[in-house]
C-alpha cells in the first residue's frame, strides 16, 4: 500500500487528535475508582434489625448449605459472638448496650463485597471476581488453597474447608450473584421480615441511608459504614450506636486494599532494571581492581628482579675483580718464588 503524503498527514492528525482528546479526557476524569456504575448493594439498617435469624435461614436455603448446628428459630445462639464459617455465609450477632441505656442491637455479618476487594487483589490465580452486579464471587476451579485471601480480608470473612483433605474451598457470601442476575433478591434480603435489609443500586442505597439519617438524626449515627471504608463496599450499614460497639472496625481507613501493595509491586521493575546494571558494574570494578593489582604486582616483581640482577652483577664484577687481584698477587708471588728459587739455584750452582 503506497502511503501518500495526504494519507500520512491524515494519520498524524488523527493520532494527534486522539492523543489530545484521549488523554485530556482521561486526565479530566478523577482517576478515583468508584465501583461499577449501576452496581447493586444491600443496606443493612441495624436500627430495624430484630435478630430473628430469618436471614440466616434464607441464606442457608438458597445456597443449599448444610443444616445448622442449632435450628434457625433458636435464638439462644445469640448469647455468644459467632462468625461466618463454611456452613454459614452470614450470621447475626447481638450487641448489648445496657450502659448506654439502650436495648440490644443486632448486626448481620457477611461479605461486604468491597468495590476493590482485598481478596481479589491478593489472589494469585484470580479466583475472585468483582462482578458488574457488585458481587464478589469465587471460582473454586482454579483455587490452590493458599488462604492469602483470608489473611488479606479486613472484615475476616472468607472461611476455608479445613476438614476436606483434597478439595477444600473458600466459602463466603456471593451476594446471591446467581439469583441477582436472574432478577431475584438475595436470599437474606428476601427472608428479612422487618425490611432491615434493602437491596438496590448502591448509589440509591447511599441516598436512602442518608435520607434516614437526615430524617431521624436522633436515631442514627451520622455515618454510612461502607460508603468509604476500604475504598467503599457494596454492602452498607447504618446504626444507632457507634459501629465499634457492633464489632465493626472504625480504623480500616479509606484506602482500597490494592493500593496497599501497589508500591511494593511497583518496585519490581526498578529492581529488575537496576540490579543487572549495578551488579555488572560492581563486577567490572572488582575485575579491574584485580587486573590493576596483578599488573602492579607484576611490575613490582619485575622491578625487584632487575634490582636483584643489577646488584648481583655488581657483586659479580666486584668478586671477579677481587679474584683477579688475588690471582695476580698469587701469580706474582709464584713468579717471585720461582725467581727466588732460580736465583737460589744459580747461587748454589755458582758456588
Amino acid at each position: 500500500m503506497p502511503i501518500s503524503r495526504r494519507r500520512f498527514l491524515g494519520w498524524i492528525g488523527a493520532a494527534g487528535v486522539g492523543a489530545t482528546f484521549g488523554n485530556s479526557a482521561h486526565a479530566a476524569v478523577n482517576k478515583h475508582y468508584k465501583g461499577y456504575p449501576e452496581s447493586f448493594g444491600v443496606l443493612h439498617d441495624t436500627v430495624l434489625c430484630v435478630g430473628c435469624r430469618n436471614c440466616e435461614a434464607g441464606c442457608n436455603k438458597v445456597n443449599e448449605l448444610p443444616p445448622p448446628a442449632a435450628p434457625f428459630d433458636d435464638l439462644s445462639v445469640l448469647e455468644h459472638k459467632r462468625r461466618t464459617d463454611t456452613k454459614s455465609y452470614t450470621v447475626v450477632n447481638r450487641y448489648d448496650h445496657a450502659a448506654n441505656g439502650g436495648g440490644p442491637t443486632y448486626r448481620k455479618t457477611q461479605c461486604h463485597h468491597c468495590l476493590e476487594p482485598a481478596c481479589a487483589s491478593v489472589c494469585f490465580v484470580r479466583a475472585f471476581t468483582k462482578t458488574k452486579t457488585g458481587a464478589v464471587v469465587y471460582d473454586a476451579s482454579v483455587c490452590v488453597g493458599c488462604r492469602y485471601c483470608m489473611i488479606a480480608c479486613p472484615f475476616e470473612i472468607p472461611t476455608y474447608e479445613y476438614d476436606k483433605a483434597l478439595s477444600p474451598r473458600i466459602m463466603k457470601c456471593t451476594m446471591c450473584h446467581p439469583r441477582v442476575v436472574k432478577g431475584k433478591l438475595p436470599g437474606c434480603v428476601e427472608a428479612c421480615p422487618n425490611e432491615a435489609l434493602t437491596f438496590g443500586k448502591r448509589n440509591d442505597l447511599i441516598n436512602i441511608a442518608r435520607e434516614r439519617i437526615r430524617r431521624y438524626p436522633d436515631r442514627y449515627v451520622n455515618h454510612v459504614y461502607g460508603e468509604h471504608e476500604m475504598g467503599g463496599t457494596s454492602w452498607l450499614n447504618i446504626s444507632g450506636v457507634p459501629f465499634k460497639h457492633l464489632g465493626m472496625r472504625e480504623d480500616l481507613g479509606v484506602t482500597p486494599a490494592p493500593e496497599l501493595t501497589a508500591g511494593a509491586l511497583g518496585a519490581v521493575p526498578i529492581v529488575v532494571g537496576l540490579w543487572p546494571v549495578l551488579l555488572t558494574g560492581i563486577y567490572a570494578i572488582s575485575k579491574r581492581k584485580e587486573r590493576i593489582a596483578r599488573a602492579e604486582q607484576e611490575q613490582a616483581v619485575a622491578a625487584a628482579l632487575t634490582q636483584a640482577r643489577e646488584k648481583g652483577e655488581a657483586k659479580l664484577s666486584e668478586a671477579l675483580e677481587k679474584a683477579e687481584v688475588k690471582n695476580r698477587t698469587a701469580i706474582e708471588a709464584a713468579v717471585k718464588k720461582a725467581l727466588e728459587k732460580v736465583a737460589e739455584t744459580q747461587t748454589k750452582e755458582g758456588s
Partner: protein
Amino acid sequence: MSKDTTTISKSFFPPFGYAAKELVTALVQTFLSPFGIVAGIIVVLGLVLTVLRFTGGLATVTNLSDYNAWGIWIGFDLLTGVALAAGGFVTSAAVYIFGMKRYHFAVRPALLTGFLGYSLVVLALHYDVGRPWRLPYPFIIRQGTTSVLFEVGACVALYLTVLFVEFFPAALEWLGLKKVRGLIIKLTLLLTIFGVILSTLHQSSLGALFLIAPSKLHPLWYSSYLPVFFFISSIFAGFSMVIFESTLSHRYFAHKMDETHLKGREDVALGFGKAASFVLAGYFTIKIVGIAAGNNWYLLGTSYGFWFLVELLGFVALPCFLYAVGVRDRNLKLIKWAAVWTVLGVVLNRLNVSLIAFNWHLPSADRYFPHWMEIALSIFIVTIGIIAFRVIATIMPVFYEHSDYKDLH
C-alpha cells in the same frame, strides 16, 4: 571399586551404575549411624502424619482456623526457611560479583544448603495449600499479577531453578560429565546476577505479603518498609547461616574437606562476621527509622512494645555487637554464637510478623498456637533436608575440589 570405575568410564556412557551404587551406599550409611536412627524415627512419624494430612485435611493435623489462616508452615517453613536459605545468594554474590575469591570454597556448601532450603520450602507448601497439584496454576492457568504472592511464587520457582543449575556442576563432576559442566561454569556470572535479582525480589516480597493487612498486624511490625526489612534481614541471615553451617560441617564433615576448606574456616567466620555486623547495624537503624516513620514511639511502652524491644535490642543490636567484638578479637567461638543468635533473631522476627504480632487485635481464645503435629511435620521437613545434605555432601564434591577439575573455574 577403582577397577569398576576405570572399566566403566572407558565405555561410552558415564559411570551412572557406579554413581547409583555410591548413592545407595551413602543412604544406607546415613541411616545406620546414630543420627540416622533418630532421623529414621522422625521420617517414619512424618510419613504417618503425611497420610493423616492428605486423608483428613488440615483440620486433622493443624490448629488453623478461619481467623488464623496461616500457621507455622507459613511462618516458619516458608518465611524463615527462605530467609535462612539466603546463604546461597550472598556467598555467590560476594565471590563472583564482588570478587572476594578467597571465599570461593564456601560457595558450594552455601549453594547446596540454599537449594535444599528452597526445595524444602516448596515441599512444605505442598502440605499447607489445599490442592498442591495446582501450585503451577498461577503460571499456566491464570496469572494473578496483582498479588504479591504471585511475585513470591514466580521468583521462588525461578530461583529454585537457578540454584539447581548453579549447584549442578557438583553433580556433573561426580558423574564425570565434563562438557556439560564446562558449559554451566561459563554461565556462572549470569546465574549469579539472576540469582541476586530474584532473591531481592522474593525476599522483600515475603515481607510485602503483609502490607495488605494493616488492620491485623501490630503497628510496630507493620510498616511500609516491611519489604526492605525482610530483604536486609535475609542478607545477615545468609551470612550467619554460612558461618553456622561451616561450624557444623567442620565438626561432621572434616574428613571430607580439602586443605583450602579446612584452612578457610577462620577466613569465612571473620569476613562474613564483619559483614553481618555491618548489615545488622544498618538494619537496626532502618528499624528505628520505621518506628519514627509510623510515629509509633508511644507503643514501645506497651507489652507488645516490650516484645518488640526484645527482638530489636536482644536479637539485632546484641548480635551486631557480639559479631563486632568477635571479629576484633578474632574470637571464633564468639562469632559462632553471634551467628546462632542472629539466626534465632531472624526466626523470631518472621514468627512475630506472621503469627505473634499478627491478629493481635483478636481475643486470646481466637488466637493461634501450633498443633504438635504441625511442629512434628516441620521437624520432619527439616530432617529430610539434613539427610539430603549429608548424602549429597558424602557423594559429591562439596567440601573439596574434584581432582579432575582443579583450577578449572
